[in-house]
């Protein structure tokens, strides 16, 4: 038994470390203290950064001699690894914590594995905060380029939370080996000349350049890559806390981006606004609703919308492009010259127009004024897509077995994509609701041709209609049988 009045119990020892991140210094001193049997609460650790004087303690700056027959201090690899991170923390109690854990390790060699232990947990927490600070420094250092007589020099001002500058130097060397750069911080600075890394004295923000023309591009990129429809300010703040903002050129934009976001999204939705409510329950309701439709530019051009017509029980639906001059005035589809051509061909193919529902992909007449004439103008893809909602509503009510699309615009109104009519004509396509889609040219195309070309195209058109007529009778047979 040692005597109770052993001076080591009463005395307080001061250990001065060279630097706040002086791991080797701490380790050497701690080894000596362990071997001398100095209790954890009897050591005051000091660095140049945190000068503290415990006025009432009996201070000894001499290392105590080791106890006779003291075993070599024990440690573990886990502990040493973690300790090297913990030592970089700005918490002034870190040295005492490490010594306390080292002290406990002497009697409990597997202490580090008990990760639910309060001291071990604290070490892990501090190490995690240090690692995060190291990571954030790698992320948030922003170099500014200055040109001087030796060429380009990249300089950054950064304010780390912990003593990580030296530990982090290697990363920037590995990444920017061929550049000349400096990182300035309030506690110290690092300078790389392309060959060696030098440490320098503390710096101030004024020592760093105040701007860089490339930052305008970076800010532009930052604002553009932000998606205003998915504002998640909390998620941003978690990873990029406000205290880093002052040294990030892009962060100045954040308040206005957030403020503008909801307005921007509302505007987008408004611009593409489409009633997503219930579909009209009758053809009359559609006819009334399209008169007031202003969802696209054609809807707003002051013309009258033209509703489809024909029996609601029709097995065949014929879809044209849009009403023309005459149709718009009369308010009925397929009355103009192209309508005449269509009617004549239908009659010849044996398709009764009276049992057919005819309508258009676009309900309003798009035109250009040419003198007194209103000249037909093709609807844009977007206008067809917008009007598709009405066509879909008509199809949902009429439920035709077969749909005939005349021309590319009508095909788009049914398929949602632009197809080449010449490639897809003459064969059936299946639509979502199980009905068949056939596509042929628009009769107005025939009107624009003359001579042999017209004859050939008329023949193909007529051919298509005959195919449809026979397909139509095929389709109606089994259905008729099942009803009987």
């Amino acid at each position, binding site marked *: 038994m040692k005597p109770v009045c052993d001076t080591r119990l009463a005395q307080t020892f001061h250990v001065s470390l060279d630097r706040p991140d002086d791991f080797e210094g701490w380790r050497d001193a701690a080894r000596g203290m362990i071997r001398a049997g100095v209790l954890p609460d009897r050591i005051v650790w000091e660095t140049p950064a945190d000068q503290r004087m415990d006025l009432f303690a009996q201070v000894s700056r001499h290392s105590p001699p080791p106890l006779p027959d003291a075993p070599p201090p024990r440690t573990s690899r886990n502990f040493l690894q973690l300790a090297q991170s913990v030592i970089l923390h700005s918490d002034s109690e870190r040295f005492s914590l490490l010594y306390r854990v080292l002290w406990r390790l002497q009697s409990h060699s*597997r202490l580090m*594995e*008990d*990760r*639910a*232990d309060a001291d071990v*947990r604290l070490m892990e927490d501090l190490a995690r905060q240090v690692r995060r600070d190291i*990571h954030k420094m790698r992320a*948030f*250092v*922003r*170099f500014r*380029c200055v040109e001087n007589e030796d060429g380009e020099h*990249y300089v950054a001002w950064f304010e780390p939370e912990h003593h990580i500058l030296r530990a982090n130097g290697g*990363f920037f060397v*590995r*990444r*920017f*080996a*061929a*550049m000349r750069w400096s990182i300035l911080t309030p506690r110290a600075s690092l300078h790389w000349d*392309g060959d060696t890394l030098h440490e320098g004295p503390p710096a101030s923000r004024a020592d760093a350049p105040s701007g860089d023309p*490339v*930052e305008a*591009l*970076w800010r*532009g*990129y*930052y*604002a*553009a*890559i*932000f*998606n205003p429809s*998915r*504002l*998640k*300010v*909390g*998620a*941003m703040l978690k*990873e990029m806390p406000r205290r880093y903002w002052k040294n990030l050129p892009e962060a100045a934009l*954040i308040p206005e*981006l*957030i403020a503008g976001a909801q307005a921007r*999204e*509302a505007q*987008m*939705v408004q*611009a*593409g606004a489409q009633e*997503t409510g219930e579909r009209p329950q009758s053809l009359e309701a559609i006819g009334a609703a399209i008169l007031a439709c202003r*969802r696209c530019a054609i809807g707003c051009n002051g013309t009258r919308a033209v509703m489809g017509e024909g029996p609601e029980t029709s097995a065949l639906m014929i879809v044209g492009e849009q009403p023309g001059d005459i149709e718009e005035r009369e308010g009925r589809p397929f009355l103009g010259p192209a309508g005449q051509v269509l009617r004549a061909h239908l009659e010849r193919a044996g398709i009764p127009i009276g049992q057919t529902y005819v309508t258009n992909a676009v309900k309003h007449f798009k035109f250009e004024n040419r003198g007194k004439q209103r000249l037909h103008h093709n609807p*844009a893809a*977007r206008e067809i*897509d917008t009007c*598709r909602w009405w066509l879909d509503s008509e199809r949902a009510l009429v439920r035709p077995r077969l749909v005939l699309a005349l021309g590319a615009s009508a095909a788009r109104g049914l398929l*949602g*994509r*632009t197809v080449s009519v010449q490639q897809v004509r003459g064969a059936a396509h299946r639509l979502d609701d199980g009905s068949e889609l056939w596509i042929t040219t628009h009769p107005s195309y025939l009107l624009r041709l003359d001579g042999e070309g017209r004859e050939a195209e008329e023949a193909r058109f007529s051919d298509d209609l005959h195919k449809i007529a026979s397909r139509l009778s095929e389709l109606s047979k089994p259905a008729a049988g099942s009803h009987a």
Partner: protein
Amino acid sequence: MPQHSVLERLEILADAAKYDASCASSGTVKRSSKGGKGIGSTEGMGICHAYAPDGRCISLLKILLTNHCVFDCHYCINRKSANTRRARFTPQEVVDLTLSFYRRNYIEGLFLSSGIVKSSSHTMEQLIEVARILREEHDFRGYIHLKTIPEADPELVGRAGLYADRVSINVELPTVAGLTRLAPDKSAPQIEGAMGQLKEAIVEARDARKRFRHAPKFAPAGQSTQMIVGADAATDADIVDRASTLYDRFGLRRVYYSAFSPIPDASAVLPLKRPPLMREHRLYQSDWLMRFYGYAPHEVQEAADSNGMLPLDIDPKLAWALRFRGDFPVDVNRAPREKLLRVPGLGVKAVNAIVTARRQRRLRLADVARLTVSLAKVRPFIVTEDWRPVMLTDRADLRSLVAPAARSQQLELFG
């Protein structure tokens, strides 16, 4: 056509690229420019250099080479029929931008994609040219992610992998029906064929490197894909199923889920209302359950309701635990690791800590509290030295006890 300034074009082409969720710069080989040659490094873990107010990480310069496109996909802001401002960069301009951003430590590298101009192969060649200049002329050792165009010549896809760390092809939509309706110019078999080719090339290169140290690397960070959530009728169960098939068939590193968000000049075919962002979050959680927590796809699907949708108010792991209460409580001092991973509120790290700590001594509730964020959530599902939930696990109102307190409903702007 008026020529826009670099800044204007950067804004247009970044704006057009932001619907790609991925910005990962991790998982590639270690490289550095030590020795003074070239520029850049990659060290395994990616770095997020900034965060936008949408909470997404900005790690890479993510832009399109051009937003001109011959395709007409309805969900896409760059579709042919959209009335949007168009711009293009030359490969050299993209290289210069990448390097000047990289030198200032704004980014980890480049994520380059493009609208389709002229032909798929021509576009792919342009993308590869950017990567080639960066790697060969500037000895760039940062991260490169190239979007691969499934319709392009397979030989080109092979070249892309030699320069890029990661290659990706988007499956775009979780169902084939959705793809046909919303991306009429794309074909599911073609997309999957190209993903299959990439997988083969990646596996082949990896094998070759085992035998020959100098065999060329091929996309060392693997391939990933993205699907849009909420633009078609697919349920969460469908999506989970699709994702697990993709992971299995193509050895993907990641499947990204992107909640469909309203775009300017939207096509009329699209639903106008966006799905809740929480849905996307829950899908990522279910993805995690499959990748890190040992849940089989069908088990994740069991956490969904009868409509195949995962609950939005609680996470899928908690939903699963509430449904299969017979598996709980789990004794933290005895249960195998796999069982512990199923306890709501215990993450992989906490489970690892428990497994090492319990070799030392028997754990008490206070010990578990130190290792988790919320003891209240964990408590009904575990047994410790000094704690047993007794009836708690079977209480009918358990859900309300462990579910996060219902925050005031997020304001639905356009409800």
